[in-house]
């Protein structure tokens, strides 16, 4: 007797598909699909970050583009300094640029985490609509700053001439870069799964379900949420770092409010609060863009219609529709 839930089966199928498609594409000599699958993977990772705050913690952040973009710029800026042999700063001590992915990821996560700490300290004092508008506004602030600060390309963005390196792997080969991204995505999902079941995860989910209850048992929702917001931003920041390396380019559009909306769409299309929701959501999004984008340049019009229909009629997203409501043990 098989004892796996529908959701587990669905998650397994999604993972195998995501892993299988690029290899199948290579076999039939269509390398373009490898890049497409890498995009799905990286967008899914950004969604996993947001889903942690939004799905588990109920924090409707409309500003996650800030962390996605900061992660990207961290990579772009450090790599450009390394390629130009120009230290990032020389006094009081010297900081060199780098082209090592692992270091760049660490920096991207620290930068996004710090930004989330500051934004969270202000925005988590409020809730509901205020929180949505404030996260949006802070993200917009960083966006305008990136546009008007000329040192790193301003409005034009910043190219990364050579994809950054990973020990023992030629990252320029698309399938290798896909596997790196895929590995990071799986680790992130695993991390979220562990956090979800921990004491911290219990408190975070309680904060979403009933804030007064959490306070009444002596746990302060503010700090739980702040920590969750920072973790969430770090994951999304890591996705931004990978996205920068995928495109070998960072631009202010990574920071734009449209990106925040799209990350949210990944989460919703897949199913809010579901571990693999963002994977399903990002895959649906890219698939939609690929199919309808080939038919009409106005595919976003139809995306809008579909999204509207999902919100009005198919709450729960893909995973919620197939696997039913979330059950806690």
């Amino acid at each position: 007797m098989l004892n796996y839930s529908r959701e587990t089966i669905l998650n397994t199928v999604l993972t195998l598909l995501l892993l299988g498609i690029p290899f199948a594409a290579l076999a039939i000599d269509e390398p373009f699909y490898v890049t497409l699958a890498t995009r799905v993977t990286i967008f899914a990772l950004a969604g996993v970050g947001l889903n942690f705050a939004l799905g588990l913690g109920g924090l409707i952040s409309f500003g996650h583009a800030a962390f996605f973009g900061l992660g990207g710029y961290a990579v772009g800026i450090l790599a450009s300094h390394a390629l130009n042999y120009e230290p990032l700063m020389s006094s009081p001590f010297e900081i060199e640029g780098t082209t090592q992915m692992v270091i760049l990821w660490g920096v991207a996560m620290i930068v996004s985490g710090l930004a989330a700490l500051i934004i969270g300290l202000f925005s988590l004092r409020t809730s509901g609509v205020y929180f949505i508008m404030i996260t949006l506004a802070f993200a917009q602030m960083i966006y305008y700053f990136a546009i008007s600060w000329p040192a790193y390309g301003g409005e034009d963005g910043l190219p990364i001439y050579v994809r950054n390196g990973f020990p023992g792997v030629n990252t320029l080969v698309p399938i290798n870069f896909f596997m790196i991204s895929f590995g990071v995505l799986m680790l992130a999902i695993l991390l979220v799964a562990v956090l979800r079941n921990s004491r911290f995860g219990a408190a975070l989910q309680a904060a979403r379900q009933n804030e007064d209850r959490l306070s009444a048992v002596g746990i302060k929702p503010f700090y739980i949420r702040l920590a969750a917001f920072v973790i969430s931003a770090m994951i999304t920041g890591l996705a931004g770092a990978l996205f920068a390396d995928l495109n070998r380019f960072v631009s202010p559009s990574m920071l734009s409010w449209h990106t925040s909306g799209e990350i949210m769409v990944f989460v919703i299309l897949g199913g809010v609060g579901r571990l693999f929701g963002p994977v399903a959501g990002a895959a649906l999004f890219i698939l939609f863009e690929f199919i309808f984008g080939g038919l009409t340049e106005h595919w976003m019009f139809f995306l809008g219609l579909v999204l509207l229909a999902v919100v009005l009629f198919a709450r729960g997203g893909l995973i919620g529709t197939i696997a039913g409501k979330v059950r806690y043990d």
Partner: protein
Amino acid sequence: MTDYSGGGDAPVLEIRNLYKSFGALKATDDVSLTLMPGEIHALIGPNGAGKSTLIRQICGEFEPDHGSVHFLGNDLKNSGVADRAQLGLGRTFQISSLALEFSALRNVMLAVQSTSGSSFKFFKPVMKDQPLVDAAMSFLGKVEMQSRANVPAAELSHGERRKLEMAIALALKPKAFVLDEPMAGMGPEGSKALTGFLSDLRHQAPILLVEHDMDAVFALADRISVLVYGQIIASGTVDEIRGNSVVRTAYLGEDA
């Protein structure tokens, strides 16, 4: 060292000259009261007398305009709801307030995790934390809810939710209970059982009991305070309150 463990004469909870207004409405008007070790102090009064407002100031949801709340000798002025719970103020809500998607067990576990160790533990799964689960189970057992442990709070009956509220309050191992209408909607059988339960509970920690069910109040209370229009108009033993003509006209609705 002041003795709070029972039998001592220092109040566990002491409210001094509390005032709270909403616009022109004086919801709390110079209220002072104490909760002594080992006692049940009942707070009664007609609807709209300001009982809930008072409870919310005691528990830290509202800040009083003037006056102070002392708990175990600490001034609670700068303590929030969570701080007060950590200090040992265990409260139940007038209308059940639970994490509805969580099972009964996980609701209680939340309280246990708050009193034992930190909530900033990120890796160990709570359901595999046997001491945590066992402790929560034992508190559910005290309200005879063990068989319902895995049912989501949203699917529990009204009476079961009230019991779950009580189990959560017990799990906080409080130094004082603040119970906001625990009998509400319990039915005669449930009220009777709860009365017996509370009667024993006072030996664990004193109880400030807001209640409409007069039979329960007269059966349980060591002292009664009567709140009308934000003011305490009388305070005393059961017999004193029963015999007080002011209370009878103002609240019990009888002709003096």
